[in-house]
């Protein structure tokens, strides 16, 4: 069981490491958002008395890098289905849950590494965390977000059979989750509907958790963030395992 999880985890890491284009491609979008929005809205944010927008935005951008990378890794299953490798794992005499867990944690590790690279880049652009000691717990929060969305990616990929479906998921699931999560704006003083949507969006708690640890600003409170992340990650791991077990080729 552990060996299976380990070898599937290792596979995800190797595939990531060997694909420099994927590493660079995954960084482009968050950095673009950070620079364009961070510097573009900075003075407005400051004028409204909210402090530095750049500082506020960095945790949101880290969350963005992680959710996109996690969903993408989860949906690697679609490629594996098309290129046939999925069958090799499904026909093996091992529990599918072990395969699913290995893939999820592999994808989550990769996404966390991407989040850390984005974090390192923001330091170059002048971001300064509230306390260096809290960077480690922040990385743990990043890994929880990554596990949650990797598991969600695998769940969705169990139903979606082709890359057109992947686009659909990006547009109608991932994009709304990102934009409604409070990654780009504070959740205080916003219309009720928007706040309600943000409250049911698991990424809100992820971004809020990183924000609490990195810039000491929090909407929900770190205890709520951690609880919601852990519960939702467990729910999606369970759901993803179930769907993966039912998969037929």
């Amino acid at each position, binding site marked *: 069981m552990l*060996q*299976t999880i*380990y*070898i599937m985890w290792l*596979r995800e890491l*190797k*595939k990531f490491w*060997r*694909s420099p284009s994927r590493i660079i491609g995954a960084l482009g979008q968050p950095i673009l958002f950070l620079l364009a929005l961070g510097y573009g809205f900075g003075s407005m944010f400051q004028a409204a008395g909210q402090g530095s927008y750049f500082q506020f935005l960095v945790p949101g951008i880290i969350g963005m890098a992680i959710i996109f990378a996690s969903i993408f890794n989860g949906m690697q299953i679609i490629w*594996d289905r098309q*290129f*046939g*490798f*999925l*069958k*090799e*794992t*499904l*026909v*093996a*005499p*091992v529990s599918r849950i072990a395969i699913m867990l290995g893939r999820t944690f592999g994808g989550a590790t990769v996404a966390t590494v991407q989040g850390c690279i984005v974090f390192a880049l923001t330091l170059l652009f002048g971001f300064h965390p509230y306390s260096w000691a809290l960077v480690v717990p922040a990385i743990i929060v990043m890994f929880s977000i990554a596990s949650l969305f990797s598991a969600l990616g695998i769940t969705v990929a169990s139903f979606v059979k082709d890359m057109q479906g992947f686009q659909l998921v990006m547009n109608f699931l991932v994009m709304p989750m990102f934009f409604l999560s409070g990654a780009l704006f504070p959740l205080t003083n916003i219309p009720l509907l928007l706040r309600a949507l943000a409250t049911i969006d698991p990424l809100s708690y992820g971004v809020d958790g990183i924000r609490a640890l990195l810039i000491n600003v929090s909407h929900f409170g770190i205890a709520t963030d951690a609880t919601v992340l852990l519960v939702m990650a467990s729910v999606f791991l369970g759901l993803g395992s179930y769907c993966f077990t039912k998969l*037929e*080729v």
Partner: protein
Amino acid sequence: MANIIEVEDLKKSFAGMQAVRGISFAVQQGSTFGFLGPNGAGKSTTIKMLTALLRPTSGAILIDGYDPTKEPHAVRRAFGIVFQDPSLDDDLTAWENMELHGVLYGVPRGTRYARINEMLKFVELDDRRHSYVREFSGGMKRRLEIARGLLHHPKIIFLDEPTLGLDPQTRNHMWEYLGRLNEREGITVFFTTHYMDEADRNADTIAIIDHGSIIVSGTGEELKRQTRKDSLEDAFLELTGHDIREESASALEHLRVMRRARGR
């Protein structure tokens, strides 16, 4: 010799369409069994049921004494499989693909390395062990898949159109490997193919399936004698007709083919 595969009145329906309609056959341990039939006849569906990838609607299967619906893992350890389409990870090396398979099949580390070496030598890929699979030609990929399918010492190897798209040289090579294996390790070979000469030359027993039913089985000689034809190809066409069948790409497509077949 005992039967290593026994199939009794096996049926599979997809949404009311019968893809496999009550087939029975047996394969002797250590023999080479050719499973032939036009596209959409039910070959791949049958193989999926034998390999515990698909649950039969009804009927009984015994693979090495185990029922795939009840003890899928015992069945899975008993066979190796080379799928119709490639199933390697292109981003990993030949060695890494083998290693991953060995771990999934629980081959202990010590014997695993030795066996991977042995199998890579066997298919003459040991000098390319650290090359990425994406750099391999179609024939090399097939050889690697065969080596991988044999890694965990299976008693049966399933080959679903293993020589599709390969040149005659590679094809001959492949059958030579399989023949040697059959002799050396007593492995049972279960294969499908569209090359009738290949089936005639290599199979001890042949079964022909069409529209989900086995229409005839026996040795190549018996089938030719029965149809009074000189070649297995002519015998095959005599038995299954000359109409062109649609290739079924997906389960949905499969349904369409079956619906058409039933409507005739």
